[in-house]
């Protein structure tokens, strides 16, 4: 086993955990969730959706409303304060201690646990290597860059071999390029540690890359739980479809399984009849072909060349304009008439919400 691993970590269960704040705001509807040993679970949603509240309840920084329970490996931890839960936590602001050096920050949890100073120094050195911050051990925190702080915060949280690693938007404070790079590093590190990890983010690409499973949250409730593919390809509702990736949401009548659109009749592979259906079509599942070679057609409104692909906005095909991600070698100009070929199984029927 990897010497830095935390024995695979603990399994977590939260049972009808809701949170109502003193002023009466409902931050979290009662939710039940199981997180397997060694799994990386991402809580994803816009700000104010309750994801951080859920993380803080698991951490022991917030108490759930009466009736809610938090269990680690089947043991009820609800009343146990954070300092006795053996969780490692990385805060959005990192919460590094300005009065201690980098090495003292990383070793603080070990010192609290009464580890002898030689053993502690060895463990700190191991983490410095693991998180790739050699030579910074004696620096003060205010002498570090954002990316270095992030690594120190991670090293400090992992040093204590926690049963569960909790990360609250750990990359949000960094600029975009650094964020992408650290995301990859973080992913490799989490895989190597094999520890149960709960990761809060509002960034869907972070969630996709890091999560074994993603919990999409909306207005204090769980909207959908699934692995990244399930969340992306079969969103349960319009909110999930629109929050994860780009999505065309089309409202149109369904006749014998065909969507009746201004630009033609698009088969969906079924035989259903619905006066007002709501469907989702991902931009990259729509192919641009010669007009007449597809059941659906429209007019090119605009094209933005992005590099690896180009984003084409098409009008006249559906009620609203349609977004298409086309390969970067297709030659088309605004005003061109084009055919739109969509595989029936790329069309996802969503429940109506009013």
């Amino acid at each position, binding site marked *: 086993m990897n010497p830095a691993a935390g024995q695979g970590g603990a399994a977590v269960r939260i049972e009808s955990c809701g949170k109502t704040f003193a002023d009466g705001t409902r931050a979290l509807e009662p939710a039940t969730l199981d997180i397997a040993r060694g799994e990386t679970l991402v809580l994803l949603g816009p700000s104010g959706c309750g994801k951080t509240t859920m993380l803080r309840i698991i951490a022991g920084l917030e108490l759930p409303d009466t009736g809610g329970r938090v269990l680690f490996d089947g043991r009820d931890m609800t009343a146990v304060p954070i*300092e006795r839960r053996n969780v490692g936590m990385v805060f959005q602001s990192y919460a590094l*201690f300005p009065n201690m050096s980098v090495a003292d920050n990383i070793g*603080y949890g070990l010192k*609290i*646990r009464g580890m002898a100073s030689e053993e502690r120094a060895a463990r700190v050195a191991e983490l410095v290597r693991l998180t790739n911050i050699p030579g910074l051990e004696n620096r003060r925190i205010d002498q570090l860059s954002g990316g270095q702080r992030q690594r120190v915060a991670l090293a400090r949280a992992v040093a204590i071999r926690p049963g569960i690693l909790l990360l609250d938007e750990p990359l949000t404070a960094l600029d975009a390029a650094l964020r992408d790079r650290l995301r990859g590093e973080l992913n490799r590190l989490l895989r190597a540690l094999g520890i149960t990890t709960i990761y809060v983010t509002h960034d869907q690409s972070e969630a996709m890359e890091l999560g074994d499973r993603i919990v999409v949250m909306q207005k204090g409730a769980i909207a959908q739980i699934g692995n990244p593919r399930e969340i992306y390809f079969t969103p349960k509702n319009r909110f999930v479809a629109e929050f994860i990736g780009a999505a065309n949401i089309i409202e149109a009548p369904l006749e014998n399984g065909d969507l009746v659109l201004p630009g033609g009749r698009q088969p969906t592979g079924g035989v259903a009849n619905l006066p007002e259906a709501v469907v989702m079509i991902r931009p990259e599942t729509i192919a641009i072909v010669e007009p007449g070679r597809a059941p659906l057609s429209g007019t090119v409104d605009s094209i933005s060349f992005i590099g690896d692909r180009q984003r084409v906005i098409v009008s006249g095909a559906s009620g609203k304009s349609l977004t298409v991600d086309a390969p970067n070698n297709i030659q088309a100009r605004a005003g061109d008439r084009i055919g739109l070929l969509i595989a029936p199984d790329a069309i996802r029927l969503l429940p109506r919400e009013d």
Partner: protein
Amino acid sequence: MRDRLIFIGQLIFTLLVAAFLVVPALLSISAGITVNYFRGIASGLTLHWVFQVFDLYAGTIVLSFVIASATLVVTLLAGVPAAYALHVRGGRLSRIVEEIITLPLAIPGLAIALALLLTYQGFAGFRRSWLFILTGHVVFTMPFMVRSVMAVFATVDIRTLDEGAASLGASPWRRFLDVIVPNARPGILAGSLMVVTLSLGEFNLTWMLHTPLTKTLPIGLADSYASMRLEVASAYTLIFFVMIIPLLVAMQMFAGAERAR
């Protein structure tokens, strides 16, 4: 040429203002080490009066330091945890408590002293001991300690640091010692200097609360002005100067160092 004249004019004005403030202090100091002030420096210099002050008033000087130190200890032990609790807890109740702690700043010292006298005159032993004066000084200086510590808490995100230490397994007490106090140190130091200086110089409250046996330095000073030779009173002032000036300088240097950070 014109600029130079303006500069010289300003310089002279500044020096005059400074002299207006400094000359009385210098005269007072010189009076304290002159054999006979009415005959002037010509009568000779002496430390006789300073020693006489020590003979007569050594007790008040010692008591002032005892009370200032005790005030510091009490405001540290009560004020720093109070500031921490008020900051972390937040909410309306904390605001109200904070306002109540700050109230003595707005109430005249005489009124506070009167309230203490009315409340505790029945406890003769307490009334007669220096602890009675200590109580007044703590009430008077506490807001300075709490405020300056809370000001630091507002600039470093102390709540998240506290949560960070808790996540690493530290008990509330360990967190307080390892993380809260070290990061509040600038505020604690500034508050401490303020508390000691205020306590050493406090007159209003102390004058009401003191007994003939519990006189502090400023009370003794007033006493010597009223009943002693001018030279003795001046020597006494000199001693007070020597004690309080280093504290004030330390406070200024400290404030400068904080701004430079």
